[in-house]
C-alpha cells in the first residue's frame, strides 16, 4: 500500500475547515479567535521546521546529533513545564526539572529502543526521535499537572504540612500526602487513555503507521509499546521532577520558598 502524497495546495484546502470553529468561537464572543490563528500559525511553522530538520537528522543519522536534538526537546519541555505549572522560571526549578525529564526520557529510550526493539544502530533517528517526542509530549503534560498540583496544594494546605513537621515528621514524611495526590492527578489522564484506547480513540502513532502502509498488527504492537513507554515515562519524570525540586525549593527550616509561585 502506497501512501497518498499531499500537495501543499491540498494542505492549504485543509485550513478552510477552521472557518467552522472560528465562527463558533466568534459567535459566543470567547475572545479565542486571535489565539486560534496564532496557535495554527505556530503549529504549522513549528512542524514545518521540525519536518525539514528531521529530514536532515534522518539523512545523517548521527548518534550525537540525535542526542543533541533530544536535549533540545527536553530543554524546551523544561521551560514549558515550569511556565504552564504557574511557577517562576528560577534556577531552583529549571535544573531539577531538566534533570528529571532527561533521566526519565533516557531511561525509557534505552529500555524500549535498545532492549525491546533492539535497534541495529544506537539511538537511530527514525525510531529515537519520534518515540522520544511522543513520550516527552506526554511527560510535559503530566509534569505540568503533577508539579502544579504538588506545589499549589502545599501552598494552600501549608498548615497540614506544618502540623506533620511539628509532630516529628521528616520533610519527606510530611510531604507524603502531597506527593500521593500529585502522582494520582498526573497518572489519571494516561490511565484513562489506556483504558479506552482502541474503543473510543485510535491513537495518532498507530493511525500514522497504518496510513503509511504498515499492517494493523504491527501498528498495534508499536502502539502497545508506546503506551507502556508513555505511562512509565510520565510517572518516572513526575516523581523525579518533584523529588529533585524538593532539594532546591525548601529552606533549611523545611519551609517552602514562596518566591517560586507566579501568583
Amino acid at each position, binding site marked *: 500500500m502506497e501512501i497518498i502524497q499531499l500537495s501543499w495546495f491540498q494542505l492549504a484546502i485543509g485550513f478552510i475547515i477552521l472557518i467552522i470553529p472560528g465562527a463558533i468561537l466568534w459567535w459566543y464572543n470567547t475572545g479565542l479567535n486571535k489565539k486560534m490563528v496564532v496557535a495554527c500559525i505556530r503549529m504549522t511553522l513549528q512542524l514545518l521546521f521540525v519536518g525539514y530538520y528531521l529530514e536532515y537528522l534522518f539523512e545523517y543519522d548521527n548518534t550525537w546529533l540525535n542526542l543533541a536534538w533530544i536535549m533540545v526537546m527536553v530543554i524546551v519541555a523544561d521551560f514549558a513545564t515550569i511556565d504552564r505549572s504557574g511557577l517562576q522560571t528560577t534556577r531552583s526549578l529549571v535544573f531539577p526539572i531538566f534533570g528529571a525529564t532527561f533521566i526519565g526520557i533516557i531511561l525509557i529510550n534505552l529500555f524500549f529502543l535498545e532492549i525491546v526493539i533492539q535497534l541495529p544502530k544506537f539511538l537511530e533517528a527514525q525510531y529515537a526521535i519520534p518515540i522520544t517526542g511522543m513520550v516527552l509530549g506526554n511527560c510535559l503534560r503530566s509534569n505540568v499537572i503533577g508539579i502544579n498540583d504538588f506545589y499549589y496544594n502545599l501552598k494552600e*494546605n501549608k*498548615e*497540614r504540612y506544618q502540623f506533620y513537621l*511539628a*509532630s*516529628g515528621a*521528616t520533610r519527606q514524611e510530611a510531604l507524603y500526602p502531597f506527593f500521593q495526590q500529585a502522582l494520582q492527578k498526573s497518572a489519571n489522564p494516561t490511565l484513562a487513555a489506556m483504558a479506552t484506547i482502541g474503543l473510543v480513540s485510535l491513537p495518532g502513532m498507530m493511525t500514522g503507521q497504518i496510513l503509511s502502509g504498515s499492517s494493523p498488527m504491527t501498528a498495534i504492537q508499536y502502539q502497545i509499546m508506546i503506551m507502556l513507554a508513555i505511562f512509565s515515562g510520565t510517572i518516572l519524570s513526575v516523581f523525579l521532577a518533584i523529588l529533585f525540586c524538593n532539594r532546591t525549593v525548601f529552606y533549611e527550616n523545611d519551609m517552602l520558598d514562596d518566591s517560586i509561585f507566579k501568583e
Partner: protein
Amino acid sequence: MILQGRNLSFSYGDETIFRQFNFSIQEGERVVIKGESGGGKSTLLRLIFGFETPDEGEILYNGDPLEGPVLREFRTQCAWLPQDLNLGRGTVADVIRFPFTFKQSVSKPPDEEQILKLFEDLGLAPESISKSFSDLSTGQRQRVGIALCILLDKPILLLDEPTSALDEESKQKAADHLLGTEHKTVISISHDPFWIDRCSRIMDLNQT
C-alpha cells in the same frame, strides 16, 4: 531550661510583633501565653517550631540554637494543636494513624479501643472515627486534634486554644490528660480561666 528566647525581634512587613523579646521555659512547666489579639501569641509558637525565622535574636533548645538538626530533634519531641486543624480528606482513623508512621515517632500506634475511649472522654461519638475528617465541624476537629496530642504522648506540647470548643466535662478530661503528667512541658495559648488556672505560669505578652 528547655526553651529560651533571646532578644527576639520579628515583624510582618511594617508591623512589629516582637522587639528584643526574651522568654524562658523550664522542663515540666505548664505555661499559658496571654496577650491581645494580634499580639504575637500564635507567632511565638510558629517561631518556636521554626515556621518563621526571627529578624534578630535566637531561640535555644536545651542550650543549643533551635535550627538545623536541633530543630528537627526538637520537633520529634513535640505534639502541636493549632487553632484550626486541617488534615485533608481521609477518615478520622487515617488522620490519627498517619503521624505514627513517622520514623521518629516516639510512641506506638494506638489501637481502636484506646482511640474510642479518648473520643468518649472528649465528647466525640464513636462513629466519627470512620467519618471524613474534612466533614467534621471545627469543634470536632479540635477534639480529634486533642486526642492525637494525647495519643502521641510527646514530652513537649504546644497547644493553641485547646479548650475553646469543649464543654465543661470534656474540658476537665482534656486538662487531666494534657496537663496531668508531671514530666510534660506544656506551652499553651488560652483565654479560658479554667485552663489558665490549671497552668503553672502565665506569660503575658502585654507586659513584655
